[in-house]
């Protein structure tokens, strides 16, 4: 890989969504792309993270309009559910496209 030449992958990298370039936020968006809605506890278990970490990153995605959050009560206990918005789904689609472009260009450069 060290013999890669040219700047094409770097161009694609510059277009990457900085929000989704973080693993936790990428995990949140990916999980919600596969499920209609997931609770805070489901996401915490799935991503193997802490309450605080999940809250911080979910809030950033919510502020960007990628997620919606709804708070309800279940048996008198608070319950938080997250859903991916159309904007979040589009962002994940774009991110996937960029990842695939980086891989494709790297392979082209290597002559594969």
């Amino acid at each position, binding site marked *: 890989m060290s013999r890669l*030449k040219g700047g094409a992958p*770097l161009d694609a990298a510059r277009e990457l969504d900085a929000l989704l*370039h973080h693993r936790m936020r990428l995990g949140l968006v990916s999980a919600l792309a*596969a499920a209609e809605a997931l609770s805070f506890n489901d996401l915490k278990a799935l991503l193997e993270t802490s309450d605080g970490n999940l809250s911080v990153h979910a809030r950033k995605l919510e502020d960007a309009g990628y997620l919606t959050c709804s708070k309800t009560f279940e048996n008198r206990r608070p319950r938080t559910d997250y859903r991916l918005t159309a904007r979040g789904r589009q962002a994940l689609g774009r991110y996937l496209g960029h990842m695939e472009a980086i891989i494709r260009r*790297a392979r082209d450069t290597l002559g594969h």
Partner: protein
Amino acid sequence: MSSTPSAAPDRTPAALHERALADLQFIRRTMEGAAAFTTLSGAGLVAIGLSALGAGFLAGSSPGPAWLRVWVAEAVLAIAVGVTGTVWKTRAARLPILAGPLRKFGLALAAPSLAGAVLTIALALQGSYVLLPGVWLLLYGSGLLAGGTFSIGLVPVMGGCFMALGVAASLLPLSVGPLAMVAGFGGLHIVFGVLVARGHGG
């Protein structure tokens, strides 16, 4: 599932290529993991529970050949309902039927189910029908506990409840067995089915 943030970004082409591959694998793994939270059909569990209540009523409280026939028929029906419900919900979520966690869940449940089938034949041949409720509840519960590792947290809890009923059916007076069957395969499926349906989209 590792979800730690990246270290200081290395933007050489080689690093970007590696990172892109790792990200795509991470996205796939995460989506498969999330699928496990959505593909278990709560409505299917409720349907299984209701049919088990009917089977319990038909089978009566005296384990014997006729009792066994009713419960074997119920087991076949329950498998059909469970598979149909899961396939329907998985397709509705536009996910692959044999995604990793679903496949692992099925395999974890298949081993104790096979053991249960063999033990059923062996115990029926010896006429030891009264031992069957404890065996079935314990094996089904152990399968749910193992398979629950790849599913939502409610599944291993349900497995634990089935095992507790299995212990009761095995160690308490033998008349408890048929009642434990109805409480487990009927009651627990309905209760947990409702919880799954309410908390995980149907």
